[in-house]
């Protein structure tokens, strides 16, 4: 568990928060520009000195800052990796020397990752002899990530590592980040203001605004809430953990079973049809369903072209001027399903009134699009 208690007056706001973050998986710090998320990351790294405390565990050496005890570890004594938007490669050193910079400063016993391993993981083997100035933006960022990994950090801090890159370069790096997560089991704290990166990478989400924490919790739970500012974003939507169940080659489709859904009380398993996947049955996948791609009906239409129609129960409603945001619990059963297995649907207020929807009502969610995150 990572515990933070930080207070730091800034020009526009005062950073003031107390946070408990899981010491595993990817935690995303999400919020608008200038909300203090970078400052939180810098305080974790020791690059910024806020008042308060920072601890990544119970042991004495895992307390990185404790003002009450007068303890503050400078950045070079914290077992972190730190990657920023601009990569910050050393221009006077070759790629290989950049990679070795941190590696040779780590105590020999505690280096768990080898140069060849990191280079292979990030696909930069062929760049080792190059000078940083000759690299593309995406290559530079991969070198910076490998360089940070080679210090074998206990915690990887990433500050908008993809923000300086165009969509193509982003798409180039995202798979590497996912591999990192899987291959090294290294906890990552990831700062971003891009919701699609959050949906794709994060396990835990911290929402920030004006120096404060609005909400902190498991990603799926927070994305499914209707009462957070997230829900009003154009690309608001939920992520669903699912398992590949079967393939349907003649139609070029695959069937996903939603984890945690349909296991209680004799309810049938809930599934989603998606475009054909390469993964074998049993593989875990993460699917994202945007609120704007979900509509509801009071009965299951047998004459619809929409493939994915799931029984749901209306759990929450947030009314806007012209739209209504619906929180939908999967299944028609009365017992509560895990909060994570929810959908959001954004419909017009006119439809909401016309259908005379009420909380607790059984409905059918028609899902027009599912995107697979990993």
């Amino acid at each position, binding site marked *: 568990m990572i515990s933070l208690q930080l207070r730091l007056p800034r020009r526009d706001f005062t950073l003031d928060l107390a946070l408990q973050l899981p010491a595993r998986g990817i935690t995303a710090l999400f919020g608008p520009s200038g909300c203090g998320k970078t400052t939180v990351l810098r305080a974790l*790294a*020791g*690059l910024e000195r806020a008042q308060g405390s920072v601890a990544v565990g119970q042991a004495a050496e895992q307390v990185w800052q404790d003002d009450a005890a007068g303890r503050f570890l*400078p*950045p*070079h*004594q*914290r077992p*972190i*990796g*730190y990657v*920023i938007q*601009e*990569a*910050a*490669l*050393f*221009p*006077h050193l070759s790629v290989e020397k950049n990679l070795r*910079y*941190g590696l040779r*400063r*780590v105590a020999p016993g505690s280096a768990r990752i080898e140069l060849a391993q990191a280079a292979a993981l990030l696909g930069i083997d062929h760049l080792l002899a190059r*000078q*940083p*100035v000759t690299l*593309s*933006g995406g290559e*530079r960022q991969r070198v*910076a990530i490998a*360089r*940070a990994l080679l*210090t074998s950090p206990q915690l990887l801090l990433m500050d908008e590592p993809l923000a*300086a890159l165009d969509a193509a370069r982003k798409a180039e790096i995202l798979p590497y980040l996912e591999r990192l997560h899987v291959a090294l089991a290294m906890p990552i704290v990831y700062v971003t203001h891009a919701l699609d990166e959050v949906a794709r990478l994060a396990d835990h989400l911290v929402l920030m605004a004006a120096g404060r924490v609005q909400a902190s919790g498991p990603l799926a739970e927070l994305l499914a809430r209707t009462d957070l500012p997230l829900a009003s974003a154009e690309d608001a939507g939920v992520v669903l953990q699912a398992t590949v169940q079967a393939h349907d080659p003649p139609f070029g489709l695959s069937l996903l079973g939603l984890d945690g859904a349909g296991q209680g009380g004799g309810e049938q398993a809930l599934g989603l049809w998606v475009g054909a996947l390469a993964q074998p049955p049993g593989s875990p996948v993460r699917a994202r369903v945007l609120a704007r791609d979900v509509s509801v009906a009071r009965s299951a239409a047998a004459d619809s072209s929409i493939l994915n129609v799931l029984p749901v129960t209306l759990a929450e409603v947030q009314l806007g001027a012209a739209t209504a945001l619906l929180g939908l619990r999967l299944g028609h059963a009365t017992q509560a399903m895990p909060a994570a297995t929810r959908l959001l649907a954004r419909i017009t207020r006119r439809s909401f009134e016309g259908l005379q929807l009420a909380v607790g009502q059984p409905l059918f969610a028609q899902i027009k699009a599912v995107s697979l995150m990993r």
Partner: protein
Amino acid sequence: MTTLSFSVAFSPADWQAITLSLQLAGLSTVLLLLLGTPLAWWLAGTRSALKPLWTALVAMPLVLPPTVLGFYLLVLMGPQGPMGQATQALGLGRLPFTFAGLVVGSVLCSLPFVMQPLQQAFEAIPPRLLEAAATLRAGPLDRFFSIALPLARPGLVTALVLGFAHALGEFGVVLMLGGSIPGKTRVLSVALYDHVEATEFADAHRLAAAMVVFALAVLVSLQLVNRPRAAARVASTVAGAP
């Protein structure tokens, strides 16, 4: 007016002055770099409210007549001055009219020529590179030697050359502090002055021309060493250009 036709050979006395000047400039440059580099590094990074004052103090020799500086140094180093008392208490004797006194004066006089290029070079290093080094386990001293110094190399070369050239040509402070004792304080610029005073224009021409040629050579080689190619390479990487 004497004729311009003269022998190119320097007299032994002039050679002595040239050698002394080179020794003074060489020793001053070494001391300047040892003193100026950490000072410039500190000034470049400090958030002290007194930074403008320190910067101004270091730059004073640029705007003050060297004779003013020499006068105060003479007072400070004299038997009643605090520096003079200190050197005497330490058994070093008095500094005025000695080679050591010249070195002190020349270092002070040339300090801004060394400090300014160094400070500018250090300030041009993006903080994120030093922060990246810190997160890669490099302590403060390590960061200075592995990142700051290599990236400040053009500034370092400029500082070295300007410091040496300025120390070599220093006149006002030398005259106030050292007079013209052959082999001890009679450096090139003073020898030149003496020649002119004695209307030995051929000798004066030789020394003056040698100084002009030297200065030109120094500035041209500085251009060559700090060619834009090398500087641009660092700058564009630093700026994160694609």
